[in-house]
């Protein structure tokens, strides 16, 4: 039953997408195949699915945990950027030093910075009752401007002719590659580990229970002796840390340096991914794969069918709308009772 909704949504997107492509004068069936099927047929595209899916999955898993508890971190993009900055700066600080400790140090710095960035809205919510949606969103802009200031200032490549970018990280500050000749890096394993750990935490651990309880019945959770402050802090720190880690991975992996264009919106897309995955780690994994697929396939369609980039984002927008909209059917079919609806109401709140 849970499968019917998403499958129907994808089917509808394909139908409407084919209409769109036909209107644009492109072969509709061929275009759909390029987007949804071709990326799966060769090694390179498959490896790129990992590259694109890794940050989405890492961030979305963390966000999903928080969303379950009604902690609305929508500033993952900022935490991602700060993670990239901290991880990258750590790597650049020891430029040209070999050592297997360099990468772990960078990851630690990135995750810690991301977590710290996320703790700002957490603390402001606990201490001053400030809405974390808004604070975390504001901090995205601050982070973006900070990155831009750093790569045009202190972190700029001294031999780079004033171009706004850092040095290229040296080898020991670059992520090991999983599959030789591709860009798929060990971050993918970290994402997978995050999914498994989150799954266990959610289903088997008390932490997961406290999250769900706070999301569904905050008052009951307080009676049960859980401290809200703790849940908020922990949720924000975990999601921020994972976003920061994803940022470091991105800088030390596919990009290999700090550039102003490093953030491409993974932090925002991951919010959508978290909901598409119904706030479940397994679902998040599938949703990130699907999103990655449309990105890679979309580029293929641009290249082979000469579709404008704009048509691809319209197509992606349609897919998201259908997926988000289809949720309603499974929700109503699965949850006929009033009590359950009410619980959902709080569980799915934004």
């Amino acid at each position, binding site marked *: 039953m849970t499968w019917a909704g998403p499958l129907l949504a994808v089917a509808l997107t394909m139908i409407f997408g084919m209409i769109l492509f036909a209107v644009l004068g492109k072969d509709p069936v061929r275009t759909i195949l390029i987007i949804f099927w071709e990326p799966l047929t060769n090694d390179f595209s498959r490896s790129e699915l990992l590259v694109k899916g890794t940050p989405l999955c890492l961030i979305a898993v963390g966000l999903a945990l928080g969303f379950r508890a009604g902690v609305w971190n929508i500033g993952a993009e900022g935490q991602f950027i700060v993670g990239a900055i901290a991880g990258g700066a750590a790597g650049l600080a020891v430029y040209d030093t070999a050592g297997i400790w360099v990468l772990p140090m960078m990851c630690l710095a990135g995750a810690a910075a991301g977590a710290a960035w996320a703790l700002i809205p957490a603390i402001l919510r606990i201490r001053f009752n400030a809405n974390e*949606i808004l604070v975390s969103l504001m901090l995205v802009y601050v982070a973006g401007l900070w990155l831009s200031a750093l790569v045009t200032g202190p972190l700029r490549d001294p031999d780079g002719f004033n171009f706004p970018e850092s040095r290229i990280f040296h080898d020991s500050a670059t992520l090991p590659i999983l599959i030789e000749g591709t860009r798929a890096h060990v971050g993918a394993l970290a994402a997978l580990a995050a999914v498994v750990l989150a799954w266990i935490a959610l289903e088997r651990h008390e932490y997961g229970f406290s999250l769900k309880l706070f999301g569904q019945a905050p008052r009951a959770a307080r009676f049960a002796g859980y401290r809200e402050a703790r849940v908020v802090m922990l949720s924000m720190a975990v999601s921020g840390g994972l976003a920061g880690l994803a940022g470091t991975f991105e800088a030390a992996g596919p990009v290999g340096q700090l550039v102003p264009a490093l953030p491409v919106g993974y932090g925002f897309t991951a919010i959508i991914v978290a909901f598409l995955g119904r706030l479940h780690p397994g679902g998040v994994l599938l949703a990130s794969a699907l999103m990655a697929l449309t990105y890679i396939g979309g580029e293929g369609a641009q290249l082979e069918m000469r579709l404008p980039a704009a048509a691809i984002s319209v197509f992606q927008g349609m897919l998201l709308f259908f997926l988000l909209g289809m949720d309603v059917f499974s929700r109503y079919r699965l949850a006929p009772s009033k009590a359950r609806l009410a619980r959902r109401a709080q569980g799915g709140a*934004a």
Partner: protein
Amino acid sequence: MDMSALNPVAIAVALIVAATPLVFAAIGELVVEKAGVLNLGVEGMMIVGAIAGFAFTQETGSTTVGVLAALIAGALLAALFAFMTQVLMSNQVATGLALTLFGLGLAAMIGQPYSGIPAPPFPELAIPGLSTLPVIGPLLFAHDWLVYASLVLTAGVWWLLNRSRAGLILRAVGENHDAAHAIGYRVVAIRTAAILFGGACAGVGGAYLSMVAAPLWVEGMTAGRGWIALAIVVFASWKPWRAFLGAYIFGGVSIAQLNLQAMGVAIESQYLSMTPYLVTIVVLVIISADKARARMNAPACLGRPFFAAG
């Protein structure tokens, strides 16, 4: 550096041009949020308004039709958001983000035949006699009508929210939808109306950019202004006149930067650009810390979906 070269009137006029799109978008979003809905799709609605306004002006030769088209286009995109979030009960944050993605793509697609064409001039509504006065003439009486419209809009929304029965209902819905529903208000209908209003405003804000400020159409030309509008609403603690002021402050930072540079003052522009956001956080903290005051400003049900379960 020569401070005497600074012409405050001219700078103020530039400021008005930079701030007006933000005023429209922020006031619209303010009403939406007052009704308890968080629509993160402002950027998408703005850019669709920008192309609709530009395209219809090109096709009909009338800037009035253009503005009207932008208004409708913004509202149409908002209708999609309303349908998703109010009827299908999808998550508002995710839907708003999807709306931005969709809107940017849609506008770029529609806009392809329109890039590289200059916009026809937008009529200025210079008030005869008054507009030639020194200083206050150019400052107050020589703008396009949309600038005056942004003032009227702000005043109107202030009146609506604070002095009218409709505003009371709107706030009640945003404050406690269950209670509002229990009294018999149609929460979904009211919220939908607010969302459409917000979309229309965002559309006009976008059109101001493509028809007056820049004036031309190019893909992605809103360049993040929809997100700034979201920040302004919070900065304003959901008060219309403060949002108006906020739009001028946020717009002003960029104008000040450029003018200071033109005067020869070296500044670290990124750090200066950060300040409005940091100030917004501080403002938010101040108004939220005092729970009684927070309740007067921030809509308690912001972003919470409403299920007619009772």
